[in-house]
């Protein structure tokens, strides 16, 4: 009797705990406790929130269009200058200043302009949107496909599993960038979707690996055997018993690779194989490289943007992994 009473009171306090957890203040308090335990992770989460905010608000905060080429009227312009003088001083022949670079913090363009007179602040902000779309998009594709295949492969094992694992081996035998280069070249002008798909394909191999190994472990447990013994079908066991128990790994796989996808896309864009008609940070680093000695800020700013974004996603991913499933450390 005392026993049931105790259980009931535990249940009640548990319910009260659940009820309390709903309030905003307690959520913040718990977040504060987590942040205190893992300061680096908290820093990463803040960076991610900042980048996500910039990405979502990009159209409203970018001030200028990222492709408008701003031109400054040339005070030295002389419409009647003869060609010989123009050959000596090209500035005489152009109604606009030929060298369109503008330094940061100097004028109306907060971060200056690039070689074509495009506002760098607008381009960095637009790049944030692209980076987030690519990183999160690729991760969603990788996780959805990887979870499905990993679930099937790990649950049924046997021949199918063997073939899928060799395919995964083959994908992972490639140096990532080579495979990406090849897939992206399928279009003469790679689109954003193709880039995301290629990155997702690469991540697919990693996701399958991790999800499959979790599925293998869960499939051995007693509750799966119990479910089978009362006659549950394979599909039901996979969906109702195995899947909920590997969701922790799935969450880790999702969050841990976003930074890597952003990094890989930056490399592709740097090599000129990124999404053709979009403003990406990798492209900007490459564009600024040519005049790095005189106008370093385009490369430096976009390079810093890539680094901070990847840093944020990596730290946040590590923190999520450590909270959810520390055994996946080092995978």
């Amino acid at each position: 009797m005392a026993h049931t009473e105790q259980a009931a009171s535990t249940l009640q306090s548990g319910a009260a705990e659940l009820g309390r957890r709903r309030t905003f203040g307690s959520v913040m308090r718990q977040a504060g406790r987590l942040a205190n335990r893992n300061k680096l992770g908290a820093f990463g989460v803040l960076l991610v929130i900042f980048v996500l905010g910039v990405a979502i608000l990009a159209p409203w905060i970018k001030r200028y269009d990222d492709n408008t080429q701003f031109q400054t009227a040339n005070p030295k312009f002389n419409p009647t200058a003869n060609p010989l003088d123009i050959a000596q001083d090209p500035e005489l022949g152009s109604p606009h200043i030929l060298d369109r670079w503008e330094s940061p913090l100097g004028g109306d363009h907060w971060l200056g302009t690039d070689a074509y007179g495009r506002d760098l602040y607008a381009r960095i902000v637009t790049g944030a949107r692209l980076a987030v779309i690519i990183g999160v998009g690729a991760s969603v594709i990788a996780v959805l496909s990887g979870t499905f295949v990993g679930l099937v492969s790990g649950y049924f094992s046997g021949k199918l599993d063997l073939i899928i694992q060799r395919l995964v081996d083959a994908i992972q035998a490639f140096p990532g960038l080579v495979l990406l280069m090849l897939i992206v070249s399928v279009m003469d002008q790679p689109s954003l979707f193709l880039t995301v798909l290629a990155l997702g394909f690469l991540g697919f191999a990693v996701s399958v690996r991790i999800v499959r190994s979790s599925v293998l472990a869960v499939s051995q447990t007693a509750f799966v055997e119990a479910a089978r013994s009362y006659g549950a079908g394979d599909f039901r066991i996979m969906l109702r018993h195995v899947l909920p128990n590997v969701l922790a790994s799935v969450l880790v796989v999702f969050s841990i690779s976003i930074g890597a996808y952003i990094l890989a896309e930056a490399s592709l864009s740097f090599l000129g194989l990124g999404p053709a008609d979009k403003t990406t940070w990798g492209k900007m680093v490459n564009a600024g490289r040519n005049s790095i000695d005189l106008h370093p800020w385009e490369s430096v700013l976009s390079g810093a943007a890539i680094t901070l974004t990847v840093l944020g996603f990596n730290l946040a991913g590590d923190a999520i992994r450590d909270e959810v499933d520390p055994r996946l450390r080092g995978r």
Partner: protein
Amino acid sequence: MTNYIIRRLLLNVLVLWFVATMVFLGTHALPSDFAQKRIASTMTGASQVEAIEFARHELGLDKPLWRQYIDFMGELARGDLGHSYESKLSTWTEVGRRVTTTLELGIMTLFISFSISIPIGVISAVKQNTWIDYLLRGVAILGVAMPVFVVAIFLSLAVIKFDLFQIDVLGRPHFWTDPLRALQLYIIPAIAGGIAGGAGIMRLLRSQMLEVMRQDYIRTARAKGLRDDTVWIRHALKNAMLPVITIMGLTISGLVGGQIILETMFNIDGMGRFLFARLNLRDFPPFQGTVIIICFVLVTMNLLVDILYAWLDPRIRYT
């Protein structure tokens, strides 16, 4: 053990067959081919179409796909990786010319990544949760997040701004012809690649060190009265390095991507730059061949690493 090695070798053959098929299908799925890329730039009109058809026939690109696949696989089985459409040289010759250059940069990169990551990993673990640990870990985390080309650009910028030395991107110096200029050319890409590779090693080494330092034999070594650094190096590091060896394959696979970017950036005529240039030209045979060679090396190295691991750590038994 022998059975294990034989089984792994057979699996590797299967994996390489998958790799070769994927490269073949991948290259043939591309919208343009070498004939188009080359001739479209020099001719126009009806003669262009004719010339492209002729070039395709010459190169064997007009055969049905399955026929080309069988030819490709037959040649591959005999160790023939085809000839470049452009230079007409065999892939082996083209790769052979560049392998030393790639190794020059690659070995230097590996050397730098180890000489950065091992001391940092050890110090960071030994001084766990002190300011120096936080600083070093911060550097490592930053190293993982920074793309190699950004590191390379920042370093070049520093070299240019402070006028430290000249970077000879045109002369193609080698260590055996002009060591000083070769060092000046290779040092920036090697550091950039080394940081990217070393950061991963450092993080793994640190966590392994922390694990090992909790073991009983470390306490025994201390109890014997051994000096701290003897315990750290002889007892802890030696054991903590074992798992680091297992990610060597992964590290080098990661270096390949960096090598493509850095060789292209610094105009170093190695395999990475070659690979990228061949893909852009749609010069398929050397591209396919180089990819297969790289994958072969990586897959073989992973096997060797696993064997080495079992040999170094007698507790590991493969069946």
